């Protein structure tokens, strides 16, 4: 008999009941909650006179709606204000720990879970947000759910689930300079397409993944959903354990060592068999930019805007043409000649300390190009504090960037940070859908170092183009 994949181990450890002909009931170790996908779930509990089964396994933070203005500025939008208040009230009523705007632990839900050490290897983690796949970087099975399922987990601490298929994506070799975790995952999404991962849980493997920091692995797992996969995984290794040591949610001393020993088992067995295996050569990778309106529409920064004539399928032709029209791009245009109006560094994909360090190193001593609005939005208050203690805030401010309060910000147009119609943005976020960053806005997904270089040059650029 062959060994087990990491996914199979995580699944088997969490089976509560496996009734014949019905989905398996899986136990959920950690339920992360935010203000947008939870109010209707709490209402459902009240209507049915149900309680939260395990408030001690549930943690809430405000992120999508919070303005990233200074904390002294009140929440201007009354509908957002009401939703943020509802999160506080619901958490208070049901006994759940919550980090509201301004709290020392507040931040984007997928940034705070790992940084607080509440995301741990071997867990099952859910959240009413599709980028929950991020937490898989720590060897936990983590996936996004809808509001009905949020209510289900609140009430039962379980979820009925169908077992997914397993996909191994191996990235082998050493990537060239200035190719980051973001470029690795853009390459993977470009290869799989937006539906290629549907029905699978992806395990990212290979020496290029092993060589990534935890922040980099989170960036990769984060965008699993952009290829249609609900969860991404990276096996536990010493990088994982070193990252977790000393964080508030993990034990100390001998207990930590015991936990670490257990965590080391959360890897795929050598003889495990995946349903699908894909390999990418890291040395082939380059900095990427999305040109269109879905995250699989990826092109090399060195490349040109594609044409609908490049594809043969008529449905695909229409999709390409629609994207070109929406993005107001002409086929054949070199990416490096396309000017931008806005640069956004932030989001659950790229707002961690390592991302900010990498971007700051590029902009240090330079100035943001005239007419470009450039924002840096740390993923959490802890990230913000850390960056400020390293002087990164001053590097960004001196270069002409806005240094803002933590939140989801311009990733998704649910707070005051939005594009105006027609604006073009180089963004370190995860989705370039039509109107994602604000109605009529045009989003190009890039890595933090490409975003930083683009802010300085006023057009898509790589770090080596920034004058020293």
């Amino acid at each position, binding site marked *: 008999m062959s060994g087990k994949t990491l996914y199979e181990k995580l699944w088997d450890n969490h089976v*509560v*009941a496996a009734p014949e002909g*019905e*989905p398996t*009931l899986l*136990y959920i170790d*950690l339920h992360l909650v935010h203000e*947008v*996908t939870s109010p*209707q779930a709490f209402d459902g509990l009240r209507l049915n006179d149900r309680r939260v*089964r395990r408030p*001690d*396994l*549930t*943690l809430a933070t405000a992120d999508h*709606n919070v303005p990233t203005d200074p904390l002294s500025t009140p929440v201007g*939008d009354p509908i*957002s204000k*009401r*939703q943020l208040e509802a999160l506080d009230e619901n958490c208070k009523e049901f006994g759940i720990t*919550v980090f509201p705007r301004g709290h*020392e*632990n507040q931040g984007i839900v997928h940034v705070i879970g790992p940084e*607080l050490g*509440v995301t741990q290897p071997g*867990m099952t983690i859910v959240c*009413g947000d*599709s980028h929950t796949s991020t937490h898989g970087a720590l060897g936990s099975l983590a996936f*996004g*759910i*809808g509001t*009905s*399922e949020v*209510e*289900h987990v609140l*009430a*039962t*601490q379980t979820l*009925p689930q169908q077992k997914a298929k397993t996909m191994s994506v191996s990235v082998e070799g050493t990537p060239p300079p200035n190719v980051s975790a973001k470029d690795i995952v853009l390459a993977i999404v470009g290869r799989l397409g*937006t*539906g290629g991962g*549907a029905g699978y849980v992806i395990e990212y493997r290979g020496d290029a993944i092993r060589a990534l920091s935890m922040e980099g692995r989170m960036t990769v797992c984060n965008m699993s959903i952009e290829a*249609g996969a*609900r969860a991404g995984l990276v096996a536990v290794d010493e990088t994982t354990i070193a990252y977790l040591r000393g964080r*508030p949610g993990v034990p100390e001393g001998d207990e930590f060592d015991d936990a670490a020993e257990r965590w080391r088992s959360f890897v795929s067995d050598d003889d495990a068999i995946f349903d699908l295996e894909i390999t990418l050569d890291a040395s082939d990778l380059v900095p990427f930019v999305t040109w269109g*309106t879905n995250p699989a529409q990826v092109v090399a920064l060195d490349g040109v805007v594609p044409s609908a004539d490049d594809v043969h399928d008529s*449905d*695909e032709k*229409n*999709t390409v043409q*629609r994207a070109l029209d929406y993005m107001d791009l002409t086929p054949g245009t070199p990416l490096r000649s396309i000017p931008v109006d806005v640069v956004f560094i932030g989001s659950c994909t790229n707002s961690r300390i390592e991302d900010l360090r990498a971007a700051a190193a590029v902009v240090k001593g330079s100035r943001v190009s005239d007419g470009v609005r450039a924002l840096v939005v740390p993923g959490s208050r802890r990230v913000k504090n850390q960056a400020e203690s390293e002087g990164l805030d001053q590097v960004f401010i001196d270069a002409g960037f806005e240094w803002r309060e933590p939140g989801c910000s311009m990733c*998704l*147009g*649910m707070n005051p940070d939005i594009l105006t119609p027609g604006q073009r943005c180089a963004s370190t976020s995860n*989705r370039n*859908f*039509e*109107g*994602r960053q604000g*109605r009529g806005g045009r989003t190009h997904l890039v890595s933090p170092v490409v975003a930083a270089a683009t802010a300085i040059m006023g057009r898509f650029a790589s770090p080596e183009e920034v004058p020293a």
Partner: protein
Amino acid sequence: MKPVHVLEGRGVPLERSDVDTDQIIPSDWLKRVERTGFGRGLFSEWRDDTTFVLNQPEYAGASILLAGPRFGTGSSREHAVWALMDYGFEAVIAPSFGDIFRNNSSKQGLVTVQLSLKDVEDLNQMVKEDPSRLLVVDVERLSVEVPDAGWHRAFVLDPMTRERLLEGWDDIGISLRREDAITRYEATSSAPSLVGVFDAQGHAR
């Protein structure tokens, strides 16, 4: 959830692929704490365009959406399902769906029917020829029919989803029947409680 057996209604051909949930309901609408009233936000960025198919009078009142490949990818927002249902859609027929969207639909009683691209294109054609044509989505027999054209196709739903739709079952009620098993599991589970990690104000201890 209301039980769903046989749906009869007119179709509307969307004819777009990769329609993500941000297009179905833009994020500005997600600030609301209610579960109703999202129909006005359905495809709202496209509805300003007078040529958009939902603005065509011949499709007013259609209850079956004919969509393209990979319908409902992206964000997990169940608001997308609420918006489609609040607008009046009872079923979506497409060559493929985003996983989370399809799952969310099943919780609300929105029927998602997966047919081949060719079959969806044929349906689009029939509906465009005669928008008043009646389509039938039969959850009991797992078939889609266009009676006046003599056209019918079988589709697949996992048995549990079909049963839940037919019975209108509440998932939470079903799972709570296994409360003993949950309690037994918890007795052996190693999930670390957050009570020891944060104090009442959420500060790390």
